[in-house]
């Protein structure tokens, strides 16, 4: 498969943001997700009830591999979703609506099946991104996210790498309040055919 230049740039930018990424064919996406959960040592996955993810058989494959799959929306309380009270180490899965090649930024929009806090409540953040959603610049991605005349999502998060803080001695420490690590599985579509 020929490489898509935007995808390559995006994955390169992810590395600068201390995140990781890989491009896979649709058929390999679910396995790539499972491999990442294993690498992190997650026991539970918090997964949006998303049609495309289901088509890619992501939740199904994770459950078959022995992970506790919790679908969003979930009736579990915030304490459990936030990982309190000895909840198992959880990876949040997201499906970004756009991404920015220049700076490795994910654009994640809220909906009933995709909470606005989703990626920040888990210990790890695994994003599954269609490669035709990658834009060159932030301005392009935001124009596509907020088309004139259409209703905007109530919550949109621009996420550029794992959560970090430099508040102790100006040295970067990861996993402050959001995800400790971020991995993006880019699913190749017709464009990279």
């Amino acid at each position, binding site marked *: 498969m020929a490489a898509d230049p935007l995808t390559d740039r995006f994955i390169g930018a992810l590395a600068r943001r201390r995140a990781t990424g890989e491009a896979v064919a649709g058929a390999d996406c679910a396995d790539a997700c499972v491999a990442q959960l294993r690498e992190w040592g997650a026991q539970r996955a918090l997964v949006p009830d998303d049609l495309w993810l289901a088509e890619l058989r992501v939740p199904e494959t994770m459950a078959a591999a022995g992970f506790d799959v919790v679908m969003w929306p979930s009736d579990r309380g915030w304490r459990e979703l936030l990982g309190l009270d000895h909840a198992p180490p959880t990876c949040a899965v997201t499906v970004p609506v756009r991404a920015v090649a220049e700076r490795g930024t994910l654009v994640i929009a809220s909906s*009933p099946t995709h909470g606005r*806090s989703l990626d920040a409540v888990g210990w790890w953040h695994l994003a599954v991104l269609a490669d035709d959603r990658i834009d060159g610049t932030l301005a392009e991605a935001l124009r596509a996210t907020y088309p004139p005349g259409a209703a905007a999502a*109530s919550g949109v*998060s*621009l996420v550029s790498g794992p959560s970090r*803080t*430099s508040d*102790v*001695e100006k040295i970067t420490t990861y996993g*402050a309040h959001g995800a400790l690590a971020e991995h993006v599985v880019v699913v190749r579509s017709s464009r990279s055919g």
Partner: protein
Amino acid sequence: MTIPVTYDDGPPLRARTQEAVADDQLRANLRSTAASWTAGREKMRAEFGFDEMRDRAREIRRDNIRRLPELLDRLEERVRANGGVVYRAADRDAATRYVLDLARARGARLVAKSKSMATEEIKLNEALEEAGLRVVETDLGEWILQLAGQRPSHIIAPAVHLNRTQVAELFRAESGEDLPDDREALVAYARRRLREDFAAADIGVSGVNLGVADTGTLCVMENEGNARLVTALPRIHVAVMGAERVVADWDEAAHILQLLPMAAIGDDASTYVNLVTGPRRDGETDGPEELHLVILDGGRTALRGTEFEEALHCIRCGACLYSCPMWRTVGGQAYGSPYSGPIGAVITPLLEGTSSPRGSELPFLSSLCGACHEACPVGIPLHDLLVRIRGAVSTPVHRRERRGARIWAAAWRRPLVYRAGVRLTRLGLRVLGRDGWITKLPGPAGRWTSQRDLPTRWPPTP
């Protein structure tokens, strides 16, 4: 430069700065902080075209402020259309009262906050705590300060003056646990501890970096993820925005959202930008049920059309602080204002007036070297503004000094008076001197000789 010391309200500026200068720990922390900022800025110049982006940012902000009333109206209209409530607060008290009344009306007990300079400005925490609410700062640096009972020393890096040993001591006292002096362990403890509060908070309070007028979207930038949880989990989200923080559309927003972290911390993006366009919609299980936007004027719009208008261009990145030799020496707390550094020395008097102690002192806490202007991502001529504000300060000390300067100028314009003055001074020096040197002058001149000796004739006798 003279920093007057005439004030009765708390320790005067001179005492605060002297205390800061004597604190070796603080100075070492400030030095390393400023050095890492400088390195980051060089990287942004070389790799991301910071200087070119700056020109466009300056145009954007100039245009935003020229069109401010129109943009604010549009923002307000769009936020309402999105299901939010908008309150325009004329001053600090009105803003605080609004949040307090809302908290009371909803029976709130716990407020989770993400870092916000506007809420520091209106002293929201104090007001809420006085009313019996528990307020938790969830930004790690702010939480550390809350535990330490201190005020922020930098706009974006509030606890930059404390090191890990000091932080570990605070956390141990808070938790009763035996925590190591290890950064990862300290951050993990804060994460676990603050999640308890995210799960229980009734109200989330955030600031607003930018309001996008076109869509009524509030942008909240951060690196930790706490602002996301503050804006997504509690039932009520209150966003407090300075009235000048509005841009027209997403092209402008995209530019500023990229430039701000470049200027602030030498990074090409902040980890999280939370874009809030109204409360949660039908079927959504997170996001606040109520969104309140408090637009704080507090003296801002009165600056439009004056010689100080450019102060409103500020995007609160903190770059001028790091670049400032004064701030690098004394840190932010010595300023005694939520806004420190060059921008603090400019907007504190502009928003509070020049008659208060800090309003009249701060414009003089600068060597006018202009490094702040060079560092500013929107090109505010901070050193010029400082000079203009100094001209507007009129306390008894300043009036006395100006009178002295006028007499001096008048004398030096007349050769006879000038020569007579020089002779008189020489004579005086010889009378006061011993063995060709003066080691102690009387009165206010004693400050000069407290640091050095003065020869009675030139060249001095060895």
